[in-house]
């Protein structure tokens, strides 16, 4: 990889062999997605797929439709045209609840945490779909109400440990610095044990050290749990370094799709990024 990254060539080559072995069948495909808000076309006829186990980047200038695409995938937006194929099943529409239930977790561009709640409680919300105890069992702290809460609490503790945030478990997240809030948001998404993790600018607004930490966590999640990751990111060195394949959107259209190498050398991409400014 002849890029401005820190990965030495041999390591990169070894990694790509290892990656090829890890990446599997198509997990999610979007087909001919078009999304309009009134007269504004946010996405026009966009198709691409995400394979199991890969790290897939979605890049593009501001207003290219990247976040809209994530919102379509997890059901916040209903596209006027196109369909989503999730684990081999074609869906005419995805709802946020079905997405979460089916194993899609996400983070948000502008941190969306439950500000009044502690780090621990925030992450525990990621376990809500795993809990089965009835209302009375929970309220009276009996039977499954107790065993489940303890079990999930232990699970969340492992995530706190993994993301190195055990020291802030009881702090209300509204009081945490920005970088840590981003990490708690990732923790909440991980608590859902997702098959597909959607990250909307996970490193935006971070300093170099925080970015490196976040990069490491994303790679660790992907390698240790085999979680498929789709991320939107503006930092090109990060994108080129950690992603297996890159989708480039521009003005709501698919501009390019391929390996970081292919995308970087694509004349259309070069023009979109260097030739014209979209403001």
């Amino acid at each position, binding site marked *: 990889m002849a890029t401005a990254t820190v990965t030495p060539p041999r390591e990169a080559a070894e990694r790509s062999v290892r990656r090829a072995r890890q990446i599997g069948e198509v997990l999610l495909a979007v087909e001919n997605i078009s999304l309009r808000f009134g007269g504004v076309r946010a996405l026009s006829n966009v198709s691409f797929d995400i394979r199991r186990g890969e790290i897939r980047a979605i890049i593009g200038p501001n207003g290219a439709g990247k976040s809209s695409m994530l919102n379509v995938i997890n059901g*916040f937006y209903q596209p006027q045209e196109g369909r989503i194929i999730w684990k081999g099943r074609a869906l005419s529409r995805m709802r946020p609840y079905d997405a979460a239930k089916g194993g899609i977790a996400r983070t948000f561009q502008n941190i969306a945490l*439950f500000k009044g709640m502690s780090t621990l*409680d925030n992450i525990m919300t990621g376990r*809500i779909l795993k809990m089965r105890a009835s*209302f009375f069992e929970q*309220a009276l702290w009996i039977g499954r109400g107790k065993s489940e809460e303890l079990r999930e609490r232990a699970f969340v503790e492992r995530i706190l440990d993994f993301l190195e945030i055990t020291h802030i478990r009881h702090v209300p997240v509204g009081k945490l610095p920005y970088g840590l809030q981003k990490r708690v948001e990732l923790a909440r998404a991980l608590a859902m044990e997702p098959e597909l993790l959607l990250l909307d600018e996970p490193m935006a607004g971070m300093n170099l050290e925080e970015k490196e930490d976040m990069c490491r966590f994303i790679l660790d999640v992907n390698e240790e749990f085999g979680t498929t990751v789709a991320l939107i990111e503006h930092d090109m060195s990060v994108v080129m370094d950690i992603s297996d394949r890159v989708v480039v959107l521009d003005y709501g259209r698919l501009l390019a799709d391929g390996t970081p190498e292919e995308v970087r050398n694509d004349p259309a991409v070069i023009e979109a990024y260097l030739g014209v400014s979209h403001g």
Partner: protein
Amino acid sequence: MAELGPVLEVFLGGLMSGVLYALVALGFVLIFKASGVFNFAQGAMVLFAALSLVRLSEWLPFGVAVLLTIAIMIALAWAVERLVLRPLVGQHGLILFMATIGVTFFLDGFGQTIWGSNVYQLDLGIPASPWFLFENLFPGGILVSPIDVFAAVIAGTLVVALSIFFHSTKIGRALRAVADDHQAAQSVGIPLNQIWLIVWSTAGIVALVAGMAWGTKLGVQFSLSLIALKALPVLILGGLTSIPGAIIGGLIIGAGEKLAEFYIGPLIGGGIEYWFAYVLALAVLLVRPQGLFGEKIIERV
């Protein structure tokens, strides 16, 4: 210390009526906490619940009437969720607030159309004659209304139950999550519609309890709908997001207005009760806009 008897009596009476305000305020807090909607219709829900109960109990055993009224309040919550909230998902808070004003007018009219608009007596079988406490300590003792005591016990039970509900159950955690951020809550798989149904049903049941307490005291009539206005200063004082705040705010307002009437009233000709709460609320707004127990809102600019 001959003065202490009457003062204590005024103070206790104030606390008791404060509990009644708090019962109404509690309904507001529940809905605001869990959906960010300031539900102006809470007063109308109190009236509607009380009317339903009083009319149903005319031809049904009381227990059955209560259960049926609870069912009606749940059905109402379902209708509000379906017809008002769902189409307005993601709209600005002010728009949702306006929608609840619409619900208020509808409920006031609809309730009186189907149940009638007379003053109905609600009899919970609580002795109407007051109790006299500490008769050997103070001349004449301290007068306490059994209805107020009943309301206080019910309110206390409700607060404890709701606190457990909010803080140690999965649904409670989900409710708090929804209150903080709708989209984030959806992204972890919390179904907004179900949560709203639960919250509005709970608020409906709280409205029923408030309606029973107020209805026994004043008779079930249109003016019950207006006690919502009395709950506003309680909310400002206690904070819109705090369940204990609603209770403590209610107690402070209740006791405060009665004591103000007792001490300052004679000096300026009385009538303080009617505006004291609002002045107190205004003073709190100036010093602590989030109320005594509310969450301070810090926004990134």
